C-alpha cells in the first residue's frame, strides 16, 4: 500500500450526492482481471458529457476530489478505488461515505476524509472560485487546510498509523497466526465446511 502522510494539491468539486460505485466505475470495466488501467473507466458515463467537471481543463491535474454526501455507496467493487487512484486522486473529501468504499480506500492508501457538510460546501466554493487553490490534507495533524482555513477531521489512530506507515494488513495479521490457530481449535463442531 502507498503510504500517506501529508498531501498538497489542487482539488476538483463534484457537486453530486449519492455518487455510487456504479458511477465511479461502471460494471463493464469490472471484467478486467488485472489491477491496472481503470483510470479510463473512472466516471466513464459522466465523462461523456463535455460539461462534466472532470472535463473542465481548469481542474486538470487535481488530486483531491471534493464530493457531495454519500460518496461511494453501493457495490463493494474496489475497482472504484483503483480507478480514482490511477486517475491521480490521493484524497476524497465528503460529508459521508459508503462503509465498504471507505474501508477499501484505507486498504489501498486513498484517503477518505469526512468533513461536515457545510465545510465541504465551503471548500467546493473556494475551489470553484480559484481552481488552482492549494489544498493540504495532513493526516498526521488530521487537518484539511486551504487559504487560511483549517478544518479538523477524525480518523482512528490505528487506521492513521497503517496509512502513514503504508502497512500491509495481511502481514500484520499473520503475526497473530497462533491466535488464529488457537481459535480454530475451539470452533463449534457443527459448523459447515464446503468439502
Amino acid at each position, binding site marked *: 500500500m502507498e503510504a500517506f502522510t501529508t498531501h498538497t494539491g489542487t482539488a476538483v468539486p463534484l457537486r453530486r450526492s449519492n455518487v455510487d460505485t456504479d458511477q465511479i466505475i461502471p460494471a463493464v470495466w469490472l471484467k478486467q482481471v*488485472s489491477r491496472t488501467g481503470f483510470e479510463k473507466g473512472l466516471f466513464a458515463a459522466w465523462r461523456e458529457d463535455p460539461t462534466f467537471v472532470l472535463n473542465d481543463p481548469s481542474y486538470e491535474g487535481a488530486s483531491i476530489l471534493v464530493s457531495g454526501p454519500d460518496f461511494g455507496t453501493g457495490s463493494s*467493487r474496489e475497482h472504484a478505488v483503483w480507478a480514482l487512484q490511477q486517475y491521480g486522486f490521493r484524497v476524497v473529501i465528503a460529508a459521508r461515505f*459508503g462503509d*465498504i468504499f471507505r474501508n477499501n480506500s484505507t486498504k489501498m492508501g486513498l484517503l477518505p476524509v469526512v468533513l461536515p457538510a457545510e465545510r465541504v460546501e465551503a471548500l467546493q466554493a473556494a475551489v470553484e472560485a480559484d481552481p488552482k487553490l492549494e489544498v493540504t490534507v495532513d493526516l498526521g495533524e488530521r487537518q484539511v487546510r486551504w487559504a487560511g482555513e483549517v478544518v479538523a477531521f477524525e480518523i482512528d489512530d490505528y487506521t492513521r498509523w497503517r496509512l502513514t506507515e503504508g502497512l500491509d494488513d495481511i502481514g500484520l495479521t499473520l503475526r497473530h497466526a497462533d491466535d488464529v490457530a488457537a481459535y480454530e481449535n475451539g470452533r463449534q463442531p457443527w459448523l459447515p465446511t464446503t468439502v
Partner: protein
Amino acid sequence: MILKEEIMGRTLAEKVWEQHVVRRAEGEPDLLYIDLHLIHEVTSPQAFDGLRLAGRKVRRPDLTIATEDHNVPTLLGPISDPVSKTQVETLRKNAAEFGIRLHPMGDAGQGVVHIIGPQFGLTQPGMTIVCGDSHTSTHGAFGGIAFGIGTSEVEHVLATQTLPAYRPKTMAIEVSGELPAGVTAKDLILAIIAEIGTGGGQGYIVEYRGEAVRKLSMEGRMTVCNMSIEAGARAGMIAPDETTFAYLKGRPHAPEGEAWDQAVEYWTSLRTDDDAVFDKVVHIDASTLTPYVTWGTNPGQGLPLGESVPDPESFADPVARSAAERALEYMGLRAGTPLREIEVDTVFVGSCTNGRIEDLRSAAEILRGRQVTTRTLIVPGSMMVKRQAEEEGLHEVFKAAGAEWREAGCSMCLGMNPDTLKPGERSASTSNRNFEGRQGKGGRTHLVSPQVAAATAVTGRLTAPADL
C-alpha cells in the same frame, strides 16, 4: 473469565460478533474469524494474484466456495464476450490452483452467490460470512453477521480466514403489525430505505425485528436483509427461529443427528436479550404499507405505487432537491405524473433480491392465464431454483404468458452480461439498484416486487396485482 454483566443485555449482533473475536487489543480493530467465504469471478482475480505474488496459500479452502454468476449469459451457449470469458476462466484457474470448490456455468449447483449459500445449507445461524460483494448482507437472514468486502479484504480472508474490523453500532428496525395482502418483503424493504435514506444505516448492523418480520418466510427475510446495503448498512440480520430451522433441516451442509440438536440449542440462544440496548431504533408500521416502487436513481427515491412522481421543489433539503432534479432528468420523468402511468419496455424478475423459488411462484401466480405485453425476462437465481421451478411447472406458465425463461445468473441486475437495457429503455426490475446505467448504459430502472413486476408485464405500465 466472563463477568455476568457482560453476558446480560446483549444484542444478537453483539453475541455473534463476540463469538468470532480471535484477538482483541486496545486501540486496534478486532480480528474476526470468518466461517464462510463466498467467491465470484468479478472481485477475486486480483486477490488471487496478490496471494501468488506474496507466495501465500489459501488458509481454509474448506471454508471457501466459488461460483460464476455476474458474467454468465442466461441463454444457453458459451460466453461470447472475450473479456467476460477470460474473467470466468481466471476464476476456474484460480479455484483449481488453490483447491477451492467451484460451481461453474452449467453445473447443477451454479447460481448467484447469495442464492446458492443458503440453498446448500452453508449459510447457518450465528456464522460470520463474507464475500467480495455488497449483497452478502442477504445471509444475515439466518441470524449471522454477513457483509460485503473489497478485493484487498478478499485477499486477506483467503490468506488468513480472518478480517480486522471495528464492530459497527447496532440499529433495530422494529416492524410492527402485519403486511397487508399483496404487500411483500420487497415493498417493506423499499419502504424502509425510503424512510431512513440510503445513508441511514451507515456504520450500523441492522437487526430487523417485530411481528411482520417474524411472519416472513426465509425467502422474504433474505429479500429484506439483501437490501440492507441500499440503506447504507453493511449487514442486516434476523434472529433465527423455527422458520429458519425448518428451512435448514435436511440441506446438504446442515448438521445432522446429534450435531443438529446441539446446533439448534445454540441457535435458539441467538436472540437479542430483552434488556439489550440498541444504538438506534426505528419503528415501521407494516399494516400501513402498499406496493412500493422507485422513481429515481437511488434506492431511497421510492414511493407507494399509488402516488405520483414528486416535484423536486417539494424537498426541503437542497441536496435531496438537486438529487431529485437530476434523477427526473435521467429517468425522463415529469413531476406529477402518476407512477401507474409510467410505461416500461422491459420487465426483469430475478437477482439475489428476488430470484428465489417463492419469488418465481408469486410471479407465476399473476401470469397464469395472462399474456405479457412487454419484453419479460424471468431468470432463476440458481440452477437449483430453476430445477425446482420446472418441477412445479412454473416455466410452462411463464412461457405460455410470453415471457422468456432463462438460465441462472445475475442477468439484468447489472450490465456485465448480455442481458442489458439499451440507452433510454425503461424497466420494472425486481433487482436492488436503480443507479444510473446499472442495467446498461442509459437504462432507466424502477425497482419493484416480483408481484408488481408480473402485473407490469401484463399491462406495460407500473401496475399492482390488485389493479389487474
